[in-house]
């Protein structure tokens, strides 16, 4: 596997071979991929990246499964949109949106799955599995169909209809579990012990899978002309994406692709109905107390977040904050983003934008900062969330008179 040396425990440092392992046998700490950064630095330049594929695999040397193993060439390198109209409403002069709604299955999960399935193939697996709140389910089902893996996707039974249909259509096994995501996740963690022949992308392949989120940071830096923003706002579910974005910026510096050591403030966004990490941030606690989620932002509804502690630590060290917003604010955030920038994001995007709005209003996000907000999923997946909140302006019979009567200002010109 290219420049991957081994896996090592983030807590106690014990070293393991680069196989399908996710926790330290001794202390149960998470295993992380250890790279040979010197080798990467000696062979990777801004030019080699620019000459690479127009996908996450342009950063292959810094991802497991790359550079040769990349399964698909469509994931990633999504637009970094300069959001001047939204910025003007929020009083921010330099706001960008990382628009991951346009990935192949409509969320950032294509990134992590592209990496995980590339590794699954390298390790010789023929079956893949996952526990998902929907976006990961979409990505695993679709990429498995394309790559020819058997798939077993486990979801909570109360997911949005669109996320169920857009998983089931790919024809793999879809197991709807009568419980919430944390129940599904526990079941999958137990199944992993009995099914070492399955590549559970977010369990036994988690060290590799999670690395895919670094590509968000790689792309943002490249798209900003190899500079980093001052402040990023990232949605928090398990907390993995946030910690990996931070790691991505650090690695770019480490291998010589950034001139200066990055100092990016990293802020996290949660829904009030599931805010265990934001709660810990506000109370100053060092432990994450699990909660029972109750929010329309189902893709963020992880009450017992695996990387919650690391996300908390990353935010605190960076000088960022964690903030949470209500379901009503989430819908308003979705509408604001669509109205100002023409981007229809799922509920998690509403969480991010609503938190950004709150932080801009309170001065935590400063007007002159270069800010990037991560919009990580497509609104077509969670149409139910806005169904009662948006409707036609008017409904009329098909006649000129009716239009003139209903919309006099538009009709009179």
């Amino acid at each position, binding site marked *: 596997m290219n420049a991957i040396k081994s896996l090592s425990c983030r807590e106690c440092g014990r070293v393991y071979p680069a196989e399908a392992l996710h926790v330290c046998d001794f202390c149960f700490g998470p295993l992380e991929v250890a790279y040979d950064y010197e080798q990467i630095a000696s062979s990777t330049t801004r030019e080699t990246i620019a000459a690479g594929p127009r996908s996450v695999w342009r950063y292959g040397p810094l991802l497991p499964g790359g550079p040769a193993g990349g399964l698909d060439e469509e994931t990633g390198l999504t637009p970094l949109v300069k959001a001047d109209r939204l910025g003007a409403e929020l009083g921010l002069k330099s706001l960008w949106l990382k628009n991951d709604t346009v990935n192949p299955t409509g969320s950032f999960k294509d990134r992590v799955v592209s990496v995980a399935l590339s590794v699954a193939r390298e390790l010789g697996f023929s079956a893949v599995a996952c526990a998902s709140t929907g976006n990961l389910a979409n990505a695993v089902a679709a990429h498995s169909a394309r790559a020819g893996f058997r798939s077993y996707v486990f979801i909570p039974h109360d997911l949005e209809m669109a996320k169920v249909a857009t998983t089931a259509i790919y024809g793999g096994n879809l197991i709807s579990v009568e419980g919430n995501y944390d129940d599904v996740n526990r079941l999958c963690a137990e199944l992993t012990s009995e099914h070492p022949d399955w590549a559970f992308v977010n369990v036994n392949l988690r060290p590799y899978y*999670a690395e895919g989120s670094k590509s968000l940071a790689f792309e943002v830096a490249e798209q900003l002309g190899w500079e980093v923003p001052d402040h990023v706002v990232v949605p928090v579910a398990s907390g993995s994406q946030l910690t990996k974005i931070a790691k991505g910026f650090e690695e770019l510096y480490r291998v010589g692709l950034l001139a200066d050591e990055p100092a990016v403030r990293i802020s996290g966004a949660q829904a009030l109905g599931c805010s265990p990490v934001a709660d810990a941030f506000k109370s100053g606690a060092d432990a994450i107390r699990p909660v029972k989620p109750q929010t329309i932002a189902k893709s963020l509804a992880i009450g017992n977040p695996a990387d919650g502690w690391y996300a908390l630590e990353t935010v605190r060290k960076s000088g960022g904050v964690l903030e949470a917003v209500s379901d009503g604010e989430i819908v308003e955030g979705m509408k604001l983003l669509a109205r100002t920038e023409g981007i229809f994001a799922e509920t998690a995007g509403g969480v991010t934008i609503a938190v950004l709005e709150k932080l801009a209003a309170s001065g935590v996000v400063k007007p002159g900062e270069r800010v990037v907000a991560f919009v990580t999923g497509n609104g077509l997946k969670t149409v139910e969330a806005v169904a009662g909140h948006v409707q036609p302006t008017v409904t009329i019979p098909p006649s000129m008179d009716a239009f003139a009567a209903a919309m006099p200002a538009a009709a009179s010109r």
Partner: protein
Amino acid sequence: MNAIVRIPSQLRELTDGQGEVSLSGATVGEVLKELDATYHGIGERIFDGSGGLRRFVNVFLADEDVRFMEGLDTPVEDGQVISIIPAVAGGS
């Protein structure tokens, strides 16, 4: 009370390869201490220095996280299943 304890693959080298073992105790903590007494070495894996659960160990009684109940003091009924599960899994 007799409880069934499900052992994750990471600890099975200490239980002679068994994925489930039957043990007694009135609370979750007592059952887990009995587990350590029977299969020596498990205690240092799942407990921290002060006798609490390590940060990355989750324990479930009848599929419910014991942190939503009384933690290690949660009473155990006869025949209930206790699962020890690595905390680091998942990601939406």
